[in-house]
């Protein structure tokens, strides 16, 4: 049967790919999708621990994570539309008007 560490390794690698996507891409859509990748990695981890510990709490938390991801996607895409309407670009390094 599948050892639990396989699921944890899969989720760690997926999370790492998400981190690299956030740090290295310029397009704001890809950055947001990388955040979704990281949330999915957390979901796999929660579901795996829920399965191996015989507890449904992890699955409940996956539902909450999906809820937060949906709300986050809606608000973030509205902000992107607003920024691209004002600045005319979708690249993150053209947005640095706050010099952050």
């Amino acid at each position, binding site marked *: *049967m*599948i*050892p*639990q*560490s*396989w699921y*944890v*390794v*899969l989720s*760690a*690698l*997926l999370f*790492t*790919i998400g*981190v*690299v*996507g956030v*740090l*290295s*891409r*310029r*397009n704001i*859509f*890809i950055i947001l*999708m*990388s955040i*979704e*990748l990281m949330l*999915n990695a957390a979901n796999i981890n929660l*579901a*795996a621990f829920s*399965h*191996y*510990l*015989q507890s*449904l*709490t992890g*699955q*409940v938390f*996956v*539902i*909450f994570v*999906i*809820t*937060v991801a*949906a*709300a986050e*996607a*809606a*608000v973030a*895409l*509205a*902000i*992107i*539309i*607003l920024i*691209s309407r004002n600045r005319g670009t*979708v*690249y*993150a390094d053209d947005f640095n008007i706050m010099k952050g």
Partner: protein
Amino acid sequence: MMNKLIFMYFAVVILTSAILTITRRNPVHSILFMLLLFFHIAGVFVLLNAEFLAAVQLIVYAGAILILYLFVVMLLNVDRETSAARGHRFWPWMAVFGILLAVELVLLISRGSFPVAVDQPMLLAGTGVKELGIVLYQNYLAPFEIASVILLVGLVGAVMLAKKNVKE
């Protein structure tokens, strides 16, 4: 053995499509690879005896969130993407950092031990969805209500942000 083969297939497709998602030049291609990734994550959930989560993953992530991304990408102008640079100027450093982070995480996980290593189906009475509903509405009712408020805030906030100001 069969389960391991199925898991390996899901894992390889998930990691490959994740890498393709963050490296494609065209955001529409990225979103389509992301769709493939979400389908295979739903498969992993089925392997973990979480059928309801697999359905929610397909309906909410693949059906709602990703379509929202696709609509916004198609509404905005992405023609310039073919000529502009994909990553900013530090991207090789970030890639090296990611490889180091991945190696470190895999080493840590492979040297650690997990308390439960047996793989067995959930010891529950009835179907998993019914048990999940009971847990969700009895033990986690307050977080559930807060999640609904978060969704309401997201809905109102998105409309308020994206609407044009008609007075000006």
